[in-house]
């Protein structure tokens, strides 16, 4: 689409949005690249925008044009949406939904929606009160509440259309992920890998919110929606693998939560999502592979049927959730064009899979890895380093890399540029000791039994941001960062890539070299994901949340300021983060 046509389209959209023509707006949403209507920009989860006004030549002029305090202090993960002339923002608990009017000076609110969310959820959520965003579909904003509900709100009026209970907080289930919508199905999942939940994914009806199917991530084939003839795992065969790979029925409280993003291939009609860690952290209480924890699963969105599954970390010993983004891209590998799925795992390997079958095409370490030597191409299994196996009988196992924060946090989704053919991702350079003991399962309380002190990996810096060639499994460049890097990535057709740092710098860098083009100190550490859009004024803007949080390890010391009765010692590995940032939820918009 030409720029003129796009602007005209956008103005029309803005008008339509105000006049309440949501169906037309939805139809245009797929093509009007000036918008950001899904959590990860598109079904392929590329976080790539075709907007190209901001370039390496002019990015130095980027400056803040607008800010807004959300009034909430929890970790601001996720990202805003921009649909027509409106920006939608979901806050961490208590999950307020703001709708800003981008057509008027100062972006005043059109409305705000304040659901009634239980404060008890704060004690059932492992890792702060985060929310990873909303999705727009057919005139609705759909998102999840921490206390286990999904809501649909009229995108024009802010009126609640439906609110349904999807998760049982009493069992330790909370909901932090951003849903996606495929046709009339809303796909949602629950957090709770630290509470021993029986992990699942659900498909709701977009019009009513009614649960149409529930698919567990382990357990009997019937619970997993494995139907005869539809399921073919690339490296496994047999029935009820989700039972037989868990000793003593441990699958019943085995975790495998869903708290990352979901992607979708319309041609194959498959949704892809990752599952979290197996519970408890003492792996000796759940001998076996523990399928399908720490895995990627491919399902039919209509009925939830499982089509294939691949386990990145069999018998997870290290809290290696696989909930990070599954990015779909067509790549040339060894001269052959492949429908690939690319995933940066907590376990430190970046995987390039065939997304039709789940077979591993390539796996290479993108961060320091000591728990395994490599991934065996024949079996798809990691080649383990025996000395790094953990368990209650093994005492304190030292020097495991990556740490339980991962080579990258699954909360920090990567981006893919089809122009550079590179993937862009935050990284953590952290290692850990891992001491575990027998954990008892008390419904609704943490099911862990572990202590995992962290330390800096090789080089002493704690994080970074890299460009990765997933066709060859090679790092192209990496910017070192002083602290673990927890923001998502944004790639643009202007060949400028954006990310934020934990100490509160928001940066634009050259997509081909990593050279920093601009940086600005926002009000708090960045754990959110930048987006870009074309506003009704015709200009390209970049928006990002500031608001450190999302993992209590990040808030050690006085980074927290809101509770005078909770004072903590600084983390050993990051003694001075509180010198550079404190909590605070702020939306920042940058322009040229």
């Amino acid at each position: 689409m030409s720029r003129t046509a796009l602007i005209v389209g956008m103005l029309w959209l803005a008008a339509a949005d105000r006049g309440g023509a949501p169906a037309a707006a939805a139809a245009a949403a797929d093509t009007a690249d000036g918008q950001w209507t899904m959590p990860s920009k598109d079904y392929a989860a590329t976080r790539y925008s075709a907007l190209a006004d901001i370039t390496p030549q002019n990015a130095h002029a980027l400056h803040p044009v607008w800010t807004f305090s959300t009034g909430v202090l929890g970790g601001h993960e996720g990202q805003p949406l921009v649909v027509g002339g409106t920006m939608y923002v979901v806050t961490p608990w208590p999950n307020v939904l703001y709708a800003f009017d981008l057509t008027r000076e100062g972006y005043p609110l059109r409305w705000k929606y304040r659901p009634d969310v239980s404060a008890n959820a704060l004690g059932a959520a492992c890792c702060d009160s985060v929310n990873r965003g909303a999705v727009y579909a057919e005139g609705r904003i759909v998102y999840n509440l921490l206390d286990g509900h999904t809501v649909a709100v009229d995108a024009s009026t802010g009126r609640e259309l439906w609110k349904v209970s999807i998760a049982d907080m009493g069992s330790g289930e909370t909901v932090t992920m951003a849903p996606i919508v495929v046709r009339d199905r809303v796909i949602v999942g629950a957090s709770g890998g630290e509470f021993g939940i029986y992990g699942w994914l659900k498909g709701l009806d977009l019009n009513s919110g009614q649960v149409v199917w529930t698919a567990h991530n382990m357990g009997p084939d019937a619970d997993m929606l494995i139907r005869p003839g539809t399921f073919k795992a690339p490296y496994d065969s047999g029935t009820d693998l989700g039972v037989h790979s868990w000793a003593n029925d441990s699958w019943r409280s085995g975790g495998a939560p869903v708290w990352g993003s979901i992607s979708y291939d319309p041609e194959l009609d498959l949704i892809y999502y990752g599952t979290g860690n197996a519970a408890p952290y003492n792996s000796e209480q759940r001998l076996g592979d523990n399928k399908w924890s720490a895995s990627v699963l491919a399902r039919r969105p209509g009925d939830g049927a499982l089509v294939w599954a691949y386990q990145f970390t069999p018998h997870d010993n290290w809290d290696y959730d696989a909930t990070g983004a599954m990015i779909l891209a067509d790549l040339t590998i060894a001269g052959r064009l492949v429908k690939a799925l690319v995933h940066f795992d907590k376990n430190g390997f970046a995987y390039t899979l065939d997304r039709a079958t789940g077979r591993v095409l390539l796996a290479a370490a993108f961060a320091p890895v000591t728990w395994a030597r490599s991934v065996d191409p024949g079996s798809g299994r990691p080649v383990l380093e025996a000395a790094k196996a953990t368990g209650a009988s093994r005492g304190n196992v030292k020097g495991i890399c990556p740490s339980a924060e991962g080579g990258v946090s699954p909360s920090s989704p990567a981006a893919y540029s089809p122009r550079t053919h590179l993937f862009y991702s935050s990284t953590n350079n952290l290692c850990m000791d891992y001491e575990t003991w027998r954990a008892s399962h008390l419904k609704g309380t943490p099911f862990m039994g572990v202590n995992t002190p962290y330390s800096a990996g090789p080089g002493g810096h704690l994080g970074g941001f890299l460009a990765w060639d997933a066709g060859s499994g090679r790092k192209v460049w990496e910017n070192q960062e002083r602290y673990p890097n927890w923001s998502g990535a944004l790639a643009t057709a202007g060949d400028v890539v954006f990310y934020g740092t934990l100490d509160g710098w928001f940066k634009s860098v050259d997509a081909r070299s990593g050279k920093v083009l601009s940086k600005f100190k926002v009000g708090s550490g960045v754990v959110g994901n930048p987006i870009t859009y074309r506003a009704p004024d015709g200009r390209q803007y970049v928006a990002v949340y500031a608001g450190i949080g999302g993992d209590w390890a990040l808030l050690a010391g006085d980074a927290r300021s809101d509770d005078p009765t909770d004072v903590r010692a600084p983390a050993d590995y990051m003694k001075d983060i509180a010198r550079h940032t404190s909590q605070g939820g702020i939306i920042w918009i940058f322009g040229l």
Partner: protein
Amino acid sequence: MHPMHNHDHPCPSARLALAAFTALALLGCGRPAPPVAGSSAPPSPPGVSYEAHLAAGGIVPPGLTLRNPHAGDAGVAKSGAMLFKAMNCDGCHGGDATGWVGPNLGDARWRYGGADAEVFSSIYYGRPKGMPAFGGALGADGVWTLVTYLRSLPLPPDLPTESWEGQ
């Protein structure tokens, strides 16, 4: 399940100290309500002086006298440290209660009061923002065991200032 979890009945055995009995009576545990000190009236909110109520700041005004039967007992504190792990308290409050999802319990600062009876109430009945009520799972004696452990933690000097000058 860990052997320390066998107190899962809300009405524990008669070996409990009389002080704990008072709290249990509030749960309607099928025993005659113990007499409220100095009164034979039916259960009703205890008398509170006006000034104490004004300053309560969200804390339940002191009415019932809850006394820790194990106060200062180092052996019980040690059991409490084990119970703190076994009941998954550390999963929220961190190893050695130094803070995680839930607040640091060893910083000499208390959201709902740090007297034995106040800490007992927090654990027994739960608190808003996600602190579960463990009275049912642990019984009064189990909760007092935890209180005794928490009160035994070495208190850091309360330095409200964190300085990076000279670094």
